[in-house]
């Protein structure tokens, strides 16, 4: 078990300078999710037009993995239609299971190492679960 497999430079970069951190003044779909086993929480905001996620922001408290994953997800999902966004979430689940998956937004692939740290998978998926929930509430 090598720590560097988990904490890749690109992950720490997203953790230390998260993309899309914050909230929209109005008009967004908001999803609040907790990870009740550890106290992490995320508030995800999606701007939606005609079955498309046009923009996304998040705020919350959590470990490097959960915050970096949310940061990447909000970047990757911008401009995606609902079906594409859900497919992306599906691919992320596959990545967590250790399957070789490629992403158009390549940073996400850095999270493949999480698979070797089973206790941390729930951290990585928190933001993605919020995305699913947000889209399903609007479908």
């Amino acid at each position, binding site marked *: *078990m*090598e*720590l*560097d497999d*988990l*904490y*890749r*430079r690109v*992950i*720490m970069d997203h953790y230390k300078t998260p993309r899309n951190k914050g909230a929209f003044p109005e008009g967004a779909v908001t999803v609040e999710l907790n990870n009740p*086993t*550890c*106290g*992490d*929480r995320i508030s995800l905001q999606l701007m939606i037009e005609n079955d498309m996620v046009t923009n996304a922001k998040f705020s919350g*408290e*959590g*470990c*490097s*993995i*959960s915050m970096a994953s949310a940061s990447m997800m909000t970047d990757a999902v911008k401009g995606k239609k609902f079906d594409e966004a859900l497919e992306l979430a599906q691919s992320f689940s596959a990545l967590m299971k250790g399957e070789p998956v490629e992403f158009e937004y390549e940073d996400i692939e850095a999270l493949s190492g999480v698979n070797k*740290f089973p*206790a*941390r998978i729930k*951290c990585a998926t928190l933001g993605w679960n919020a995305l699913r929930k947000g889209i399903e509430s609007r479908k």
Partner: protein
Amino acid sequence: MNASQIRELFPILHQEVNGHPLVYLDSAATSQKPRAVIEAVKQYYEKDNSNVHRGVHTLGSRATEAYEGAREKVGKFINANSPQEIIFTRGTTTAINLVATSYARSVCREGDEIVLTPMEHHSNLIPWQQVAKATGATLKYIPLQEDGSILLEDVEHVITDRTKMVSIVYVSNVLGVINPVKQIAEIAHRHGAKILLDGAQSTPHMKIDVQDLDCDFYCLSGHKMCGPTGVGALYGKKALLEQMEPIEYGGEMIDHVDLYESTWKELPWKFEAGTPIIANAVGLGAAIDFLEEIGMDEIFKHDKAITDYAVDRLSRIEDLTIFGPLQNRAGLITFTLGDVHPHDIATVLDSVGIAIRAGHHCCQPLMRWLKVSSTARASFYLYNTEEDIDRLVKALYKTKEYFSHGIG
């Protein structure tokens, strides 16, 4: 016996985790088990296993003797007046729920008060919220000092003649603070209230005398004191237990059963419906023998010394914050390390074989009071050595280093 010799008696501690010798610092979550306990459970299954209180055959008698023998051991261990005052439960959570559901729901009325503290574990919080909802009673909280301790003058203020129940943790699983429960019991009784002590974290570390504390109920978990998981106990004063109704019904707990009416066995069996937790109770009995052979006073001294040592070493680490009072604590240290998230601390520590807990420790209201979303916790027991603490300190420096520079 010193900690290094005691370590030898715990098979699980002799293994490598991620290529490093295991350092187990999560005993407040669950303690490890000595060979004597593992053997006692194995012996029971290999030689005596049978159902209790019914078989006329020899194995049935042996199993009954072993199970009731374990009850006697628990009773003596906490100085109950009689083994009839010891109910075997699944653990502290079930014991508290039994008192809340059976006792508190029947005595609390609208306008009555139930007094707690903000440092309670969810298991000593939610059962009382449910009692309050069902009966119209009000929950009141004894405020905490800045370091997390309790002032008796605040207790005097919060407990009133309307208080029916006080339920409080003896040793906090987050702050490590040892609460002045004997004095709180005295105040509660002066107002005619009953008091329950959550002994999940105190029983493993110190000598418990329920008669001296004069608590009405005391709850403990076997698995935190070298016993198996799935067994614990409720102590209750006999007069109270006698007036309480069972909350589970079925086999074992009955006296006479008719088509429309039934009656219950006497104490303690009326609270133990179904086939009881026989093998694990036997294991808990063996754990008590084990602890008593070393001596609870010795264990308290060792755990205090190792905790003091850890407080001293950890507080030298820059950016490390320790929660709870630095004095008067038992067996654990909860901390944060700069802006490194506790999950990340726990993962780095695990990579060098050190097991700690990260999260909210089933104390979400206390986390909010501390203004953190989660914390890291290292907890100690009779098998931990100063070397374990030195490894922890070294690994914490590595964590700091890693999160400021080392990502490759």
